């Protein structure tokens, strides 16, 4: 019979009351833990969303997107202006052009010459291209390739059918870059060879997409032509989708020279210092470059909405976590104060027969801990069953307002062939989805950080809840023993 067993015994002296206290504590602690789990899960989701959005803005010529639309190209002067805007930490310039297959181009041009120019659309996808290349597309034209590369007039007397057209190679997308990054600012992932190093106008370096390289039997060191220049494959990249893997990267200056578009750019990818400044920088860029000249788009409008709503869920859950813990602490505090008052005389007895303040204080702290531990065990079970519904309810309740928001991030315009469709589809799906779809499922796994935080929180409330009453016992005088005698 030591102080511990005495305390445990005392915790169950009034079984009905202790049972009730444990149940109430379990609810409060369970709620606290569920809120903590929600907070952590939502926090992790916010981080992953932020990572997936990135903090970038796309600048396109006003009225133009990818290969579609009109307007005038951007210039290197625009890039300089963009770099000077506040919160902009980096600008990736890119010139994206379409290169027709040189052999197909000349062949179809010859066969079509007799048609008096009425059937330009059948000219091997020449429509909208800026130059030629020896490369043959790895993507079959398919229905989309036919449609995207016609000039809209029917070659077959207005039937609109594309099935009778001669086979042709769809154009290759060449992206002129000034760094080892894609037009969207992400790193180019090589599967072989090395990144571009020579960014001069007379550079002959090129990176080739993996499927395009296979189709054209290219290896690192192989050559092909762009316009009249012989380019050398310095690296083969894998962008992870069929459309991008059918393209090439060239040094920006070389691209501008080759297609005779000196100083012109098709897009700027602007890196903003933090995700919170993306929308203000979007406005600043628009006014700096002129709303009539550029369209500045954030790929993250929905994502920002999602992050904002999740952020409020995070705050709510944090406040609820703290509030539940404080409630649990108050329950412990009040019940122990009650117990101390009730046992004043007994405390007097213990002191009268030689117990120190420390021994008695310890006895009451342990007694409170027994209640807290039991409440925590039951509370953990409560949390295990309620975390998921609670997270779902919190997230649903805070994102319904953003469900209606739809993406306005254009796809890749009119580029690509049949095989490119699926790649484009998955990209645009993310953009057109509402915030709630972006949030998707939030998994509530309990990591060690959550466990540690929860344990620390519960210990803190138990300590506060138990210490104050324990200190009160020090004030009880041994003469209380004679009370009522």
């Amino acid at each position: 019979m030591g102080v511990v067993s005495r305390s445990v015994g005392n915790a169950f002296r009034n079984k009905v009351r202790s049972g009730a206290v444990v149940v109430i504590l379990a609810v409060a602690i369970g709620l606290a833990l569920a809120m903590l789990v929600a907070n952590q899960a939502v926090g992790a989701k916010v981080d992953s969303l932020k990572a997936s959005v990135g903090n970038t803005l796309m600048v396109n010529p006003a009225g133009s997107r990818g290969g579609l639309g009109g307007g005038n190209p951007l210039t290197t002067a625009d890039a300089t202006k963009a770099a000077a805007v506040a919160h902009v930490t980096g600008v990736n310039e890119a010139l994206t052009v379409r290169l027709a297959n040189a052999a197909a181009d000349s062949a179809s041009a010859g066969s079509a010459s007799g048609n008096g120019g009425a059937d330009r659309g059948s000219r091997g996808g020449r429509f909208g291209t800026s130059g030629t290349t020896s490369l043959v597309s790895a993507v079959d034209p398919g229905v989309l390739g036919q449609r995207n590369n016609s000039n809209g007039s029917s070659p077959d007397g207005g039937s609109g059918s594309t099935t009778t057209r001669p086979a042709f190679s769809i154009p290759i997308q060449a992206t002129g870059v000034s760094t080892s990054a894609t037009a969207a600012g992400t790193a180019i992932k090589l599967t072989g060879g090395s990144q571009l190093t020579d960014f001069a106008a007379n550079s002959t370096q090129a990176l080739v997409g993996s499927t395009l390289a296979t189709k054209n039997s290219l290896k690192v060191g192989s050559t092909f032509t762009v316009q009249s220049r012989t380019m050398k494959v310095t690296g083969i990249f894998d962008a992870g989708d069929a459309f991008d893997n059918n393209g090439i990267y060239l040094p920006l200056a070389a691209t501008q020279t080759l297609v005779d578009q000196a100083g012109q750019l098709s897009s700027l990818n602007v890196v903003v210092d933090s995700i919170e400044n993306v929308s203000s920088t979007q406005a600043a860029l628009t006014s700096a470059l002129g709303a009539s000249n550029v369209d500045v788009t954030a790929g993250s409008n929905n994502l920002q909405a999602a992050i904002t709503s999740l952020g409020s869920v995070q705050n709510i859950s944090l406040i609820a976590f703290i509030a539940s813990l404080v409630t649990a602490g108050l329950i412990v505090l009040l019940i122990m104060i009650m117990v101390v008052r009730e046992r004043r005389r007994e405390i007097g007895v213990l002191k009268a027969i030689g117990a120190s303040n420390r021994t008695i204080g310890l006895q009451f702290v342990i007694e409170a801990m027994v209640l807290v531990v039991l409440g925590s065990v039951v509370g953990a079970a409560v949390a295990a069953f309620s975390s998921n519904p609670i997270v779902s309810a919190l997230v649903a309740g805070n994102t319904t307002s953003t469900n209606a928001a739809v993406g306005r991030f254009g796809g890749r315009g009119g580029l690509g062939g049949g095989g490119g469709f699926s790649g484009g589809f998955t990209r645009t799906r993310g953009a057109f989805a509402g915030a709630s779809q972006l949030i998707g499922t939030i998994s509530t796994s309990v990591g060690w950080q959550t466990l540690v935080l929860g344990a620390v929180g519960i210990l803190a409330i138990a300590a506060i809840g138990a210490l104050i009453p324990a200190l009160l016992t020090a004030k009880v005088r041994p003469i209380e023993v004679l009370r009522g005698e």
Partner: protein
Amino acid sequence: MLNVKDVVKSFNSGDRTIKPVNGVSFSLEQGTFAAILGKSGSGKSTLLSLLGALDKATSGDVFVDEVNISTLPDRKLTAYRRDDIGFVFQSYNLIPNLSAKENVMLPMEFAGVSHAERSKRAGALLNQVELGEEMHGRLANRLSGGMQQRVAIARALANNPKLILADEPTGNLDDETGELIIALLRQLAHEKKTTILVVTHDHALAAQTDRKFRLAHGKLTED
């Protein structure tokens, strides 16, 4: 051994002050078996509480083996109550949810005695006050008044105190058991040189003591 000088204890009850102990002086040699007699409400329990350091005197000094307990700091008082005093309360004051034996073991636990030693000694003390073995494990609140009184006496003896203060130790005992307790206390005083001060109405007990005092109107006089 015990030297009480001009001790006063006053209580404020409402607008008037009562002084159940009003200038008490006396001293006891080590190994004395003494009794305090007096009417109900005369202040006997109050005086014992001052000697046992359960309460502070309003004025005056209490010397125990030349140490003035009126001026001791809290930590020393705790040790004094634990090691030097055995207090038998008028209403026993056992811890109700502990067994008879656990109650007797408590003061030894506070003194840091090992569990095995505590258990052994508590059993022996309970046997000494003739509480049957089958009662040792019984919860204190399931014992009869007389049994509780004997457990309270055993608890007071637990740490071999040099001064035993017993408030009506035979109040609830039949004559035969009362005689047993009186004999036990006498033996402690005369053979183990424990100083014993009992408060009693029991003439059989008073007759067995070495010295008898009477408390009336706050003053103590020796018969």
